C-alpha cells in the first residue's frame, strides 16, 4: 500500500526536491531528467526508503518520470569538539580523552547533489 501523501514528511521533501529539479531543468531547457543523486544523512530525520517510495509516486507524468532517485547514505560521525578524536555512536557523547562534548561532523545532510538531464 502506498502511504497517503501527507502522513510522512518524505512527501514534503520530495515536493521540494521536485521543485528544485524542475527549476534547474527549465533553466537548461531539458527535455527529460534521467537521474537524480541525493545525499541523505543518517541523522537527518529522512528515511531513504520512504523517500524513494514518495519519489516513485510523485514523479509520474512529470519531466522526471524516468529518473531514478540514487541515494547516497551518509553515516553519522561524531568527533570531539576540542581534540577531534572520534566518539563512538551510541556512546555517551563526550570525548573519552579530554571530556569535551562531541559534535556531529557529518550525517545530517539533506542534499541534492547532481541531476542528469537530457538537453537538446
Amino acid at each position: 500500500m502506498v502511504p497517503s501523501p501527507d502522513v510522512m514528511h518524505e512527501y514534503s521533501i520530495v515536493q521540494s526536491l521536485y521543485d528544485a529539479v524542475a527549476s534547474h531543468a527549465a533553466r537548461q531547457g531539458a527535455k527529460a531528467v534521467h537521474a537524480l543523486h541525493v545525499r541523505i544523512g543518517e541523522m537527518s530525520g529522512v528515511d531513504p526508503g520512504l523517500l524513494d517510495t514518495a519519489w516513485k509516486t510523485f514523479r509520474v507524468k512529470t519531466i522526471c518520470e524516468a529518473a531514478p532517485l540514487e541515494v547516497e547514505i551518509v553515516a553519522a560521525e561524531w568527533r570531539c569538539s576540542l581534540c577531534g578524536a572520534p566518539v563512538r555512536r551510541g556512546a555517551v557523547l563526550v570525548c573519552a580523552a579530554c571530556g569535551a562534548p562531541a559534535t556531529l561532523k557529518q550525517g545530517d545532510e539533506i542534499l541534492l547533489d547532481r541531476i542528469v538531464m537530457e538537453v537538446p
Partner: protein
Amino acid sequence: MCESCGCGDINLVPIEVQQRILSNNERTAAHNRHHFLERSLLAINVMGSPGAGKTAVLEATACALDGRRLIGALAGDLATDNDAQRLTAAGIRAESITTGSACHLDASMVHHALHHLPWSDLDYLFIENVGNLVCPAVYDLGQAANVVLLAVTEGEDKPLKYPVMFHKADLVLISKIDLLPHLPDISLDRIVDSLRRVMPNPKYLAVSARTGQGIDEWIAWLAGQEYVADAEPHPRHHTHAHV
C-alpha cells in the same frame, strides 16, 4: 539527440547542484526568525509525542508567569482546535494551525498563522508542534530554541529510538514526574543516560504540570533565553505588514 553526426545518441548532461533540498523552508524560517528578533520575541518550538504533555506544560507556564510575560501560542493540530481552546482558557493568546493529515509544521505554516495572531507585542511565542517524534525535527520554523517533552511514561529509551529529535533539542522537559512513584521500573537516571547518548551537552529539567514541580526552573530557563541575540539585517526585502 546528437545532431552533429546523426549517431542517434541522446545528449545527457550531468549538472552538479549541491543544493540543500529544504532551502526554501530555511529561507522562510530565516524570515520568521528575523521578525521575532526585531521584536525581541522569544519563539520556542515545542515538540514531543502525542500526549507527552505539551499543552499541559504551557498551561502551567501561563499560570506560573501570572501575567509577568505576555504569551502567545500557535498550536499545530491534525484535526481539532482543542489545544488552542485550552491555551486560550489559560490566558494565552492562541491560534490553531490545523494541518489536516500533515505530520509536522513548516516555516510557511507558521508565517501564515502569524498573519492571524496578533503577535508583535508578545514576549514569548510557543509553537506547539504536531505530536510526533520524527517529522517535526526536520523543519526549522524560525524558533530561538527547540524544547522537546519526554513523559516518564514513554519509556527510558525513547531518546535512543528518536535520536534526531533529541539531538536537536536545546532543552528536554522530562514531564509527568509526579507519576514516578507509580512507575517502579522507570528510572530518571536511565532517561538521562539515554539523553547523554544523543545530546553532546544535554540540558534537561524534570517537571510536573500537575504539581508544579520544576516549573520555576523552566520559567528561569525561559528568562535566560530572552536576550540571546540582537536583530540581524532583514534577510530579504519585505513590504507586507504583520498584525
